[in-house]
């Protein structure tokens, strides 16, 4: 992907530069993280309470985002939904990232049989479409939040592995790694000091993209009724339970969709416009 707006105003601080689009993305992501953390303290109504006599109520002074199919406050449900969508996705991406990247680096440095077995097995895992894999798991073990977290982590481990391995293989051929090896350094030192610091940037960007995929997959599953189950509800589940409001274009079905889109688009924009370090020698 190319950067969207190259001519946007530049913020120059600490030797890094970020454009306006990147700042906007970061602000939206930051907003949702704060919401997810603070949701129980800031919801206007308990999420289970029926506060509106009407269902699919419109936006009003009392109910900022209208009411849902039972007359519950949508604002509260969205705020709490952020907790599930972000919480589950972040947990999965951390598990997938840490295990995938570690395995990738070990495979790259060790090479030989270890590398071959790991690569072949994880590639095979990768050739199961993600939605299908989760469908099968949900069919087998049922859906609960820990199951969802682990399933999605497993789905995205092969991708994280492949990406980290490819980068680590490149670094591993560099002369500075050869120098460290013939100095007699251990595997742990090679990973920590020579490989990881040189791949961490792209790896984090890649995990950002994987986070987006996980959010989309989780929402899709919940939309199919196979993800987060009542009484909990993430954004995808909110769309599902209020899909009856679609013919009336009720806020209850539109707002959770917008919430998902705002999060994923913001992450994408942030990734595409990450702060770039200023590399001019004369400048420093």
């Amino acid at each position, binding site marked *: 992907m190319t950067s969207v707006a190259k001519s946007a105003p530049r913020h120059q601080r600490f030797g890094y530069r970020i454009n306006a689009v990147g700042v906007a993305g970061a602000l939206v992501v930051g907003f949702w993280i704060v919401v997810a953390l603070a949701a129980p303290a800031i919801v206007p109504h308990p999420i289970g309470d029926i506060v509106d006599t009407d269902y699919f109520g419109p936006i009003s002074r009392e109910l900022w985002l209208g009411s849902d199919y039972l007359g519950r406050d949508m604002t509260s449900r969205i705020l709490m939904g952020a907790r599930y969508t972000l919480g589950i996705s972040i947990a999965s991406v951390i598990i997938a990232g840490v295990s995938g990247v570690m395995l990738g680096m070990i495979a790259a440095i060790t090479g030989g049989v270890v590398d071959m077995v790991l690569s072949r097995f994880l590639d095979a895992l990768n050739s199961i479409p993600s939605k299908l894999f989760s469908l099968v798991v949900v069919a087998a073990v049922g859906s609960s939040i820990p199951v969802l977290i682990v399933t999605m982590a497993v789905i995205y481990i092969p991708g994280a592995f492949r990406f980290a391995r490819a980068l680590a293989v490149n670094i591993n051929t*560099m*002369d500075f790694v050869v120098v460290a090896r013939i100095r007699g350094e251990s595997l742990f030192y090679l990973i920590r000091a020579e490989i990881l610091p*040189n791949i961490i940037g792209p790896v984090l960007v890649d995990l950002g993209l994987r986070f987006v995929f996980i959010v989309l997959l989780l929402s899709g599953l919940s939309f199919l009724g196979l993800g987060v189950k009542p009484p909990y509800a993430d954004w995808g589940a909110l769309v599902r339970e209020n899909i009856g409001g679609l013919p009336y274009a009720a806020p209850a079905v539109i707002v959770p969709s917008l919430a998902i889109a705002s999060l994923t688009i913001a992450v994408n924009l942030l990734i595409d416009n990450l702060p770039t370090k*200023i590399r001019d020698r004369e400048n420093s």
Partner: protein
Amino acid sequence: MTSLVEIRELRVEATTDSGRTIAIIKGVDLDIAEGEIVALIGESGSGKTTIAMTLMGYARAGCRIVGGTVAVDGVDMVALSEKDRAAVRGAKIAYVPQSAAAAFNPAIRIMDQVIEVVRIHGVMPLEEARAKAVALFRALSLPNPEMIGDRYPHQVSGGQLQRLAAAMALIANPKLLIFDEPTTALDVTTQVEVLRAFKSVISAHRIAGIYVSHDLAVVAQIADRIVVLRNGEVQESGATRDILARAQHPYTQQLLAAVTPHHAPRPAVSGPTAAEALLEVHEVSVGYGPLRSDGQPAIVAVENVSLRVARGRNLGIIGESGCGKSTLARAIAGILPPFAGGVVFDGRELGRSARSRSADQLRQLQIVFQHADTALNPAQTVEDILGRPLTFYHGMARKPRSARIDQLLDMVKLPRSLRLRRPAELSGGQKQRVNFARALAADPKLIVCDEITSALDTVVAAAIIDLLKELQRELDLAYVFISHDLSVVEAICDDIVVMYRGRKIEQITPEAMARPEHPYTQLLLSSVPKLDPTWLDNLRQDPEQVRAYCQR
């Protein structure tokens, strides 16, 4: 005499990462007469290629021409529209790239690419163009001129592609040729052939041209006039002979001094054979790929090579690309275990791979690589890079380590203020000094230097060689010095091993380099260009030898 090219007050700017603009060409004037070859000489970043490109009204991505005129045959290329420029490119002005291997489209047959200019500009019937191409192939002494055009680029060698690129440039009878370092990527023995071919077609077609190079000796053979550039400004210009004999500008003099070998034979301690051996390599064979049934790997890169390095002495290993010299260095360092033979260091047999050597053995034998860019971890500061071997080998605590890092920086003549810089913030020469300092940090007895000056500009490389000599006097080091650059090896080594196709074919001393015995050594040494402009014309090489040793 009217000029074919008149560049006046040319200014080019580039935009950096942070959006700043910097001037790369700062007001350059340049003239080329009809039929004249002008050489642009300078180190990397001097702007020589940028100027050459402006002759076609072209500036690479991120650069743009901001001022001045580039008149070719009376037409200002800067002022032309993109469409009018395209009409001139290839037809009137043609370009010979530095790397022909990259400039040929891998998906199209060579002949179609060579005559593409004709197809685009419609200057002659295609059949005529094909016939002309074959004639050019023949004139450029390419093998099999009738058939070579039917091949794809990856099916012919680098030296041949370079000549094919020249044919591609000449096909539409251009008035002006731009040579962009066209022989830099080639081995010296191939370079001789390519230069000869260029020279004969240039004189046959009476073509004017601009020849971009960093190599004064090459330029001396081909150019009528030399323009010396530095930091986007002309330092000096004049006829080739005048520049070579009576350079006025200090920078030009520096360049010339860096090219001229200055070997001062070191007094042998008590005869080279009497000195105690530090490193002995016994009939080592090294290869790559899976082992075959007879225990040999699929590709054998080094075969049965034996060497001996005395304490505090230097051994040079020379040879062209692919001769196995770097593989041998890797085998000595334990990176690539040999499949036969052994290495004895300081009286003890070393393990074949680094893994099976003791920490102290690893410490005493260090290797320094060619590309400081990849040899230094970009994520670490100079302090981290130099500090690690101190901690690892000597278990130094923070304070003594810090003091030692200062010492090391002093030894390689780097300011102490660079300690906190990362490699990306250093110049090429500075990086190579840090690279070398890291090896010194181990307190080694022997340092294997694998082409450590090849990626550097001539002047910077000469300074590194001086540094190496000085450190040797102070620290009682021995070097194994691997290079394809004969003048570098000649300048620093006591003994020189010549390698060809994985074998050691001769060992000579620098004093004996004037009269080598082996025919390949004769061919190799005679192929190194000299500053004398008549060198190429007077060079007589035995065609039998050329055929036997240059399969390019």
